[in-house]
């Protein structure tokens, strides 16, 4: 029980801790990549597990993943074009062929143009998204904190004492 209590406290702390702009921006970036890739592939789930291993903010990951999942189909034409280009890129063709013969890898469905394209697009967009998010969190972090600390979610997570929320 003690362990569970400690675990719950730690989980809350990831939220109330209001991590550094880097952690928040990283969360947004990872969430963006996860959200962008179609969910019938193993890639977003693998990325999700990987994200857990980072110091990225979990809430940002979740929010970004959901948000970009909605946007993702709108960008399918671009993802498809990019996927075709990547998969038919001659120097990599033999690599793809070898990869797909490995166990579990076929579950990633990377031979699908949109899966590879959206992953590529996500990776290409990672640095701009990270930079923009970082800038935004650094500049507007206090305002966001202020609004967030008054929200029901924050009260549910850390109770009525807003001082429990740490300032970054």
């Amino acid at each position, binding site marked *: 029980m003690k362990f569970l209590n*400690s*675990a719950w406290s*730690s*989980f809350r*702390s*990831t939220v109330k*801790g209001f991590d550094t702009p880097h952690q928040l921006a990283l969360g947004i970036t990872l969430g963006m990549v996860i959200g962008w890739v*179609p969910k*019938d592939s193993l890639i977003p789930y693998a990325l999700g*597990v990987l994200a*857990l*291993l980072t*110091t990225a903010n*979990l809430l940002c990951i979740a929010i970004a993943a959901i948000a970009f999942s909605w946007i993702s*189909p709108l960008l*399918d034409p671009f*993802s*498809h074009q990019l*996927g*075709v280009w990547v*998969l*038919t890129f001659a120097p990599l*063709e*033999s690599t*793809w*062929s070898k990869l*797909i*013969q490995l*166990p*579990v890898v*076929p*579950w990633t*469905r990377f*031979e*699908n*143009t*949109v*899966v590879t*394209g959206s992953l590529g697009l996500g990776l290409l967009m990672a640095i701009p998204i990270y930079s923009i998010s970082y800038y935004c969190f650094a500049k507007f972090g206090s305002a966001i904190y202020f609004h967030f600390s008054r929200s029901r979610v924050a009260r549910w997570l850390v109770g009525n004492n807003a001082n429990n929320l740490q300032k970054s």
Partner: protein
Amino acid sequence: MVRWAYLVPRIVILALITLAVWVGSDPLIHRVVLSNLQNATGAKVDIGHLRYSLSNQKAYLKELAFADPRLPMRNLLQAEMAYLELDADRLLHRQVVIERGEASRVVFGAPRTVSGDLPGFPTPLELEEFEWNPREFGSIEEIGLAWLDQLPANNTTALTVENLELVQIAQELSGQWKTQLRSLTESIATLKQERTDLSKATSDDGNPLRRNQVNAKSGFEKLAQQSKSIQARLIDLERVALSDRDRLSLAFSRDFHKVRQSFAATSFESDSVSKLLLTEFQEKRVSEIVGWFKWFRSVVPDPETDFQPKRQRGENLRLPGIDPKPGFLIKSIDVEGEGRFANRHMNFAGIARNLTSAPTLHDQPASFELRAQGDQHLIVSCTLDRRDEMPIDSLNVVCPDMELDEQLLGEKNSMLVTMGPANRIQADIQINATGNQLSGELVFRHSNVSLHVDKLHEIIGGSDAALRLNQGLASVDRFETRVTLSGTIDDYDYQFQSDLGSRFANAANQLLDHHREQEIELRKNELEKLLAKELMKLNNEILPEIRKLGALLEQERVEIASRQNSQSQGQGRLPKIH
């Protein structure tokens, strides 16, 4: 230094995910399987319960139902339970390969209470519910008429006693002889009367002067001449009588020949008999079997055309050096269940092989080997090869033993035959379809057959001949028919050959030949009797009568000659004057 504030929640989340996967693997797999199957078929799939063992790669499914993507209110198939063994290695390569499975209480084409349409999927294909209707039969009446036309005309009815030459000659001769004999009799009687009168006139009456010697002499000479003439007629008549005997014998020969011809052999020609008796029966059988084949094709959807999978995002590119494999493959599954087959309820059990969602990517065609037990026992093996653009299907149905109801063969206006109810049939059916082009051979072996001719046209003897035929047909206890199919599946044609015609014709022809010979013998006896009677009449009545008349004439001639002699002697002497 370990930052527990970050690590612990992540470990907790991972632990929770692992726990969720562990505890909720069945619901998760349930959902994943449903989603994948629905995406693949384009119609609703229901799985009541699913349990999957990760350790031994075995899945157990209960209350499984696949909606028909073409007919949303009907299930393509449903099974009460299924037990599947998956290939773990192929599963890691994103291929669901069922090495072996069992599905029990499988039902094809069961109705659904709710539509099998899936929202967001393309509209189900327009497909009219398959209804099997037998093809319109050709006109059996025309076949009956054609059969009658090819039979040799039998003139026995035209051959009457009055038409026999022997009878006509006998009648003619009878009249002639009567007339001629009467005429001769009268001539002889007249001769006799005249001789008597002349004798009286020339006899002694005591007055020789009153005798006219010259007249008497000439009178007797005249009588002698007459008698000669009558004798010539008699000789002539005797000769005519003898020639009449020959004439009668010749007439007999001609009449006998005529009788033989009139009883021309009523030859039952094998092919035409088969055609008459079996066309309607075979038409029904062939129509029924082609209906089965159509039904079979309609029940098994073509994954390439009938399924409407959900449109996926992007395209799956074929990577160089990689042969694409079907995502879903059942290598072998034992099935047991029930269904309607050609409008008949059947229980079946058997094995299905190489069922796949992408037949073009698999190296073997789908095949079924089923034993169906219902009103009939059937062994069905079917191959559906959809690997190329042109579908190649083959259906082999073996029906080891089936009892047929009473059947009416033939046609009521020519020949109608009843095939008794106890007859059994063994069928061996092989149908192939390449695209819509149909070919195949259907062999039906009938045994324990009992045939009874109910109606037979008068031209071949009517009910009497039918009665005789029925005695001969007892020997026809089996026959075989081979049907060759051609054309297209919707407009098929067929030819058949059967030994029923030859068996029937042999039995009938033997019997009718025997009867014909009997009839000819009977007529011959009648003719011989008639000939004997007429000859006897000639020999025993006419010729003796002629001879009798000849004797009478001879007597008269002697009388006339003696009178002439006495006249000549009297003329040399002068009468004595007293």
